[in-house]
C-alpha cells in the first residue's frame, strides 16, 4: 500500500498536477490582463454591454468579438484543464482525494437528471452539467472583476435556442403529425396559446437568466455610485484626502456582491439547468414513443 502510494505520487505525477492547475488558472489571469490592458480609466457611472475587442465582417451581420465571447472561451479552456486535473491519477483501487469529489459530483448530476427527466434521458447528465458549469462559472467571473458572459443576451439566448431545438427534437420523436396534434391539446381552440407558449419558453429562459445577472451588475454600479455621492455629502467637509475618500463604499458593496454575484449567479445556473431538464422531459411523449417502438418491433417480427 505504501509502496503503491510512493510510486503513484512521484515527482512526475506532482509536476503534471501543478502544470494542470497552472493551466486551469492561466485563462482567468489572461482575461484579467486583457481587461486591464483594454479598459480605459474609469469614466464614472457607466452601464454598457461587453467591450468589443475587434469586429469580423460576416454576411448578414458583422461579428464583433466581445468580452462575452472571449470570457466564455476562457471558462471553457479552464474547465477543460479542470477535467484533466480531476481525472488525473484516477484509479479503481486507490482513489485519490479529488477522485472522491469527482465521483460524488458525477453521481449527484446523474441522480438529478434521472430524478427530473426519467431513465430515458440518462445520457443528458453531461449536457446538464455543462449548462450548470458554464452558466455558474460565467456568472462567477464577476468575482475577479471580469465581464460575466451571462449578462449578454446573445450568450444566454444561444443556450435557450439550443434547449428549444432539443425540446422540439424530442417532441418530433413520435412523428410530425403527433407533434402538430400536441398543440391542439387539451382543447382545439387553445392552439394559438399553445403556439405562443411554445415560443415563449426559450425567450423566457433567456431573459430570466440574462436579466438577473445584468440587473445584478446594474444595481451594483448604481449602489456604488450612490454610496460615493452619499459619502462625499457626509464626509466632504473633512480636510484633504479624507474628504474625497468614499468611506461608505467600504464593505456595503461586498454584501451586495455576495447576493448578486455568488447567490444569484449559482441560483440562475441551477434554475436554467432545471428548466432545461423539465421542458425537455415534459415535452417528450414517452408513453407514445414506447408504444411506437413496440409497434415497430412487432412489425419487424411479422
Amino acid at each position, binding site marked *: 500500500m505504501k509502496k503503491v502510494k510512493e510510486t503513484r505520487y512521484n515527482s512526475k505525477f506532482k509536476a503534471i498536477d501543478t502544470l494542470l492547475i497552472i493551466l486551469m488558472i492561466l485563462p482567468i489571469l489572461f482575461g484579467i490582463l486583457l481587461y486591464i490592458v*483594454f*479598459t*480605459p480609466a474609469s469614466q464614472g457611472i457607466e*452601464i*454598457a*454591454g*461587453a*467591450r*468589443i475587442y475587434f469586429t469580423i465582417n*460576416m454576411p*448578414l*451581420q458583422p*461579428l*464583433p468579438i*466581445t468580452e*462575452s*465571447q472571449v470570457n*466564455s*472561451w476562457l471558462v*471553457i479552456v479552464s*474547465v*477543460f484543464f479542470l*477535467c*484533466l486535473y*480531476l*481525472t488525473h491519477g*484516477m*484509479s*479503481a*483501487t486507490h482513489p485519490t482525494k479529488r*477522485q472522491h469529489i*469527482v*465521483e460524488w459530483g*458525477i453521481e449527484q448530476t446523474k441522480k438529478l437528471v434521472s430524478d427530473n427527466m426519467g431513465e430515458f434521458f440518462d445520457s443528458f*447528465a*453531461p*449536457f446538464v*452539467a*455543462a*449548462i450548470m*458549469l*458554464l452558466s455558474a462559472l460565467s456568472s462567477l467571473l464577476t468575482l475577479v472583476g471580469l465581464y460575466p458572459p451571462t449578462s*449578454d*443576451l*446573445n*450568450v*444566454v*439566448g*444561444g*443556450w435557450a*435556442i*439550443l434547449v428549444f431545438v432539443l425540446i422540439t427534437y424530442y417532441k418530433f420523436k413520435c412523428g410530425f403529425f403527433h407533434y402538430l396534434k400536441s398543440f391542439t391539446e387539451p382543447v382545439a381552440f387553445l392552439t394559438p396559446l399553445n403556439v405562443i407558449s411554445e415560443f415563449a419558453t426559450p425567450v423566457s429562459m433567456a431573459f430570466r437568466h440574462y436579466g438577473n445577472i*445584468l440587473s445584478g451588475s446594474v444595481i451594483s454600479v448604481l449602489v456604488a455610485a450612490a454610496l460615493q455621492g452619499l459619502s462625499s455629502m457626509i464626509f466632504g467637509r473633512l480636510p484633504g484626502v479624507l474628504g474625497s475618500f468614499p468611506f461608505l463604499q467600504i464593505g456595503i458593496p461586498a454584501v451586495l456582491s455576495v447576493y448578486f454575484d455568488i447567490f444569484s449567479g449559482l441560483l440562475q445556473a441551477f434554475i436554467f439547468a432545471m428548466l432545461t431538464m423539465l421542458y425537455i422531459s415534459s415535452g417528450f411523449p414517452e408513453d407514445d414513443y414506447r408504444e411506437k417502438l413496440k409497434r415497430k418491433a412487432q412489425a419487424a417480427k411479422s
Partner: protein
Amino acid sequence: MQSSEVISVNIWQIIISICNLLILFLILKKFLYKPVQNMLAQRQGLIDKDLESAREADKAAQANKKLYEEKLKNADEEAAEIIDDAKKKAQRKSDKILSNAKDKADDIVNQAHSDAALEVKKAQAEIKHEITEVSTLLSEKILEREINKDDHRKLIDSFIEDLGDSYDGNE
C-alpha cells in the same frame, strides 16, 4: 474602446454561444464522464471478481469441512472398533488365563485329594496291621496258648473288615 449595447442581438454571437455550450458538453462527456464511468465499471468488475472468488473459496471451505467431518467420524468409528477388538482380545486372554489357573488349581486339589486318600489307605493298612498284631498278642496273652495262627489271622481280618466297613459306612 467601443462597447456593445446592453441589449443587442447578433446572430453570429448566438451561434458562437451555442457552439460554446456544445463544446463544453463534449469536453465534459469525453474528459470527465467517460473516464469516471470507465473507472467505475472497472471497480465494479474488480468487486464482482472478488465476490466471485470469495464465494468460490467459501464453497471449497464448505466442501473441505464436510470431508474432514466425515473423516473425523470415520476415525471415531475406527477408534471404537480398535478399542472393541482390544477389549475382546483381552477378555479372551483373561478367560484363558483364568481357566488355566482353575485347571491348575483343580489338578492341585485333585492331587491333594488322591494323596490324602492314599495316605488314609496307607494309614488304614498300617492300623489294621497294628491292630492285628496287637490283638494277636492280646489274645495269645489272654488264652495263654498258641492258637492256630492262620485261623486267628482270618478271624481278626474278618472282624477288622467288618469294623472297617462300618467305619467306611459311617464316613
